[in-house]
């Protein structure tokens, strides 16, 4: 059973529909204890990093406990940012800290007046993945495949980055450390490419153990 964490940051209907389409059994736990028996955890979410505040405390502890017993964890969009130590968007509010680094507002490196300086934020639309390392989540995904983004803050490219995307800056669009993964885009809204990633995640939850 996949635990789909609902902390009231955005609507889960589209993630539910994608999981149903892939034949996955999932539930939305109402108490942290329910995570003790799950085979996978998905932390979705959109909006301000401040919206992850309800995850603080018992939920974070329960998710950490699940990760410790090798349960695969997938963070989507805000859920990816929450895997990091925090975000400039909500200073002082800690994330899970499974990945090192802090998320920051997308800015263009260019000077005023040049093309990149007029970058629109939020970053909305289809953009390509540059594969940067081996990944179980991206099994079957090709370099250059496009996925659907909608976000203003982004994670830094670190050792955990397995795919990056370029929009003014280069940011981490997929991160992975053992059986913990995060995607900045919306796999549930990214057509067949996105569904393939969700399927890879479900396969790993069936295996129940880290594969690298």
């Amino acid at each position, binding site marked *: 059973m996949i635990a789909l964490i609902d902390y009231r*940051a*955005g*609507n889960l*209907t*589209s993630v539910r*529909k*994608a999981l149903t*389409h892939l034949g996955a059994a999932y539930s939305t736990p109402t108490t942290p204890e329910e995570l003790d028996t799950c085979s996978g955890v998905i932390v979705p979410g*959109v*909006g301000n990093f401040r919206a992850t505040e309800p995850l603080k405390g018992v939920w974070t502890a329960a998710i950490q406990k699940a990760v410790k017993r090798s349960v695969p964890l997938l963070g989507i969009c805000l859920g990816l940012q929450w895997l990091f130590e925090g975000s400039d968007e909500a200073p002082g509010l800690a994330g899970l800290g499974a990945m090192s680094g802090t998320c920051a507002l997308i800015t263009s490196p260019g000077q005023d007046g040049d093309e990149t300086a007029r970058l*629109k*934020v*939020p*970053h*909305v*639309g*289809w*953009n*390509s993945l540059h594969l940067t390392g081996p990944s179980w989540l991206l099994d079957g995904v090709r370099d250059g495949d*496009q996925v*659907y983004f*909608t*976000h203003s803050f982004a994670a830094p490219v670190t050792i955990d980055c397995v795919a990056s995307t*370029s*929009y003014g800056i280069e940011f981490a669009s997929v991160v992975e450390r053992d059986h913990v993964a995060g995607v900045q885009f*919306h796999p*549930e*809204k*990214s*057509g*067949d490419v*996105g*569904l393939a990633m969700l399927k890879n995640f479900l396969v790993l939850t069936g295996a129940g153990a880290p594969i690298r």
Partner: protein
Amino acid sequence: MLSKRIIACLDVRGGCVVKGVNFEGLRNAGDPAELAIRYNKEGIDEVVILDVTATIEKRKALADTIHAVAQHIFLPLCVGGGIRDEQHAEAAIEAGADKVSLNTAAVTNPELITTLARRYGSQAVIVAIDAKRNNDRFQIYVRSGQRSTERDAVEWAAEAADRGAGEILLTSIDRDGTKRGFDCPLTATVSEAVSIPVIASGGAGTFDHFVDVFTGGKADAALAASIFHYSEHAVADLKAHLDQAGIPVRM
């Protein structure tokens, strides 16, 4: 590189697509789900379901339509038409819409933009603006283009963005249905005035019209309905055309 988006609009009434649909191989040419599946296969980037006649009694049919489409396609899905309050938006989103498009309600009650942006995030709130040229300015119209207002489209777009809109869907009333091309000066003016994406709509008649609106018009996305309805490969052919013209698209 961020791709320019191609968005298909499905005009529905009481659960059926109403504008001319002429695909071979569809069991029911008026079925929005079948049409959306076809567009998805062709490579459409996003789908908008628009029901401008959605009255209270017909909203159930609209919710059923959203649900049917969302079950089959895993792409961004926007719903617009007659969304007057938070309950209407909630019904659309719970049925499977990722975004709602507000038009008249945003003008008469701009607070609704902020309310919905706080609740669902700005990415879920599109403000649709119907603009018409009036001498040297662009005037906005409400009630499906039936009623003029004194408001200026460029100023209103900036205000909508400030209030929390995530995107602007900009329709040229002058060009809508004419197949004479998008209003590029209008689109460029609004696109430069706001820091959120602008979707151009109204007037698509040829593939080159899309090239024009993505270059001179500075549009982030372009929406059309009938140009996609009549040919089986229109979306794929359009993207190939844009690719050849050097416009970044998802192939």
